């Protein structure tokens, strides 16, 4: 019986909601109970974006993620805002290209990933989100290529099927580094 809650947070346009949706779909395909809840409203327009994802062996109660097990912070305001909310023993993934400071807490595990730089070096500047998601799955021992590809197919429209491999490769970048 396990329930894991994720909070993805960053700027609008970084693919925060997409990353969360991918993870939720993967959970669904793995036979889990899942929920995905975005922040909505004016703050979406160019400001901060966030979404909470819950993946569970049992039916999801509240879909609201106030104290995530896993925080993905893709900009400084997000880390400032949510760092203290992470449960003790949780994990924080930091985009270290955009966030220069270190996580202050010592009761959580932290991964610093220069995702935005990796994305840009890889000539896929819009995929920093998926680079981190790949690392998240890897860290949780949950990176099975087959279910990753199936989930990608669900979130990438058929018209953009060429993006599938590009996303998959991006997801491996941080793991290899």
């Amino acid at each position: 019986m396990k329930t894991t809650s994720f909070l993805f947070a960053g700027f609008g346009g970084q693919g925060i909601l997409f990353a969360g949706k991918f993870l939720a779909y993967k959970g669904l395909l793995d036979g889990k109970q899942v929920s995905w809840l975005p922040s909505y409203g004016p703050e979406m327009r160019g400001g901060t974006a966030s979404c909470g994802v819950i993946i569970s062996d049992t039916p999801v109660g509240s879909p609201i993620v106030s104290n995530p097990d896993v925080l993905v912070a893709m900009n400084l305001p997000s880390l400032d805002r949510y760092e203290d909310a992470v449960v003790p023993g949780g994990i924080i993934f930091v985009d270290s290209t955009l966030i220069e400071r270190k996580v202050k807490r010592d009761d959580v595990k932290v991964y610093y990933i220069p995702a935005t730089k990796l994305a840009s070096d890889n000539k896929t500047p819009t995929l920093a989100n998926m680079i981190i998601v790949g690392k998240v799955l890897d860290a949780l021992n949950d990176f099975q290529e087959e279910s990753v590809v199936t989930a990608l197919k669900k979130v990438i429209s058929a018209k953009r099927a060429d993006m599938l491999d590009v996303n998959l490769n991006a997801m491996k970048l941080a793991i290899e580094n």
Partner: protein
Amino acid sequence: MADKVLMKGNEAIAEAAIIAGCRHYFGYPITPQTEIAAYMAKRMPKIGGCFLQAESEIAAINMVYGVASTGLRVMTSSSSPGISLKGEGLSYLAGADLPSLIINVQRGGPGLGGIQPSQSDYFQATKGAAHGDFHMIVLAPSSVQEMADLTVKGFELADKYRMTSMVLADGTMGQMMEPVSLDYDIKPMPEKPWATTGTKMERFHNITNSLSLVPEELEQLNFARYEKYKTIEEEEAMFEEYMMEDAEICIAAFGIAARVAKNAIVEARKQGIKVGMIRPITLWPFPKKPFEAAAEKCKQFISVELSMGQMIEDVKLATGCKAPVTLCNRAGGMIPSPQQVLESIKEAANGGAK
């Protein structure tokens, strides 16, 4: 599992409506339900349906009135301030005994309020949508699956009883994504000999009308409508019971509040507190019977709401003051946390309401 897809609550409502045979949608943009209109705008032209963005909420509900008069399944959706504007139309729909489906994805109020989730339109939906003696069937989904299921159910009940069904959701339900299966066996619509679709020169003219200037006659119309409501109260109340078998404390909550309450109940049970929940799925008719039964054995009720306390009045009525009913709430777009609900449960366990 394989047949399930991840959908936003708002989109699930739209697709379920289409599956239920709705081919006419009229609406006006308002957060947090605009995905419904966007979905309809995309889909309707491809399936021979009609999506039309109306000039106002008032126009939209009256377009609904027009299509409903012809006997077709039709819907509109809005959020709290927009529903207030539709009030006039809701009353006319009731007065003319027309079936229709209205979606309210609630946000905080009053006035322009905010755009975050709320349940503060409970009174409006269940008791006072507009002038005159009338009810709507009010359905309160607590998951994306139920957003879809209750949309289909809403159409069926509307046609069965010739009245308006309202799906009373909130911003969370509308915006969240969950796995949903849209596998429905849609029953054929009942015959609608009253529909104004042209006489074809084969019958006397039909009239869709809510005007009745003779008070004796209007009284009879009201009596007849309330007979129908009585049947609905007896036959259509829906609810879910959660861990109620041995419960000493009973939570009453619907929609997102019930989801939050479940977390708290699981935690409280770990601490040895015997707490359960009755989750009304129909808010009108209010499921009185499970509350009457619970009042015989529970020492306290807690109404968990995203409002200043509205459903609590129905809980008090249904439990007949046999046990105290307290309120655990947030308002204005805020959502109670599981911890807050847990505190209320603990307080009840440690001696209950003062």
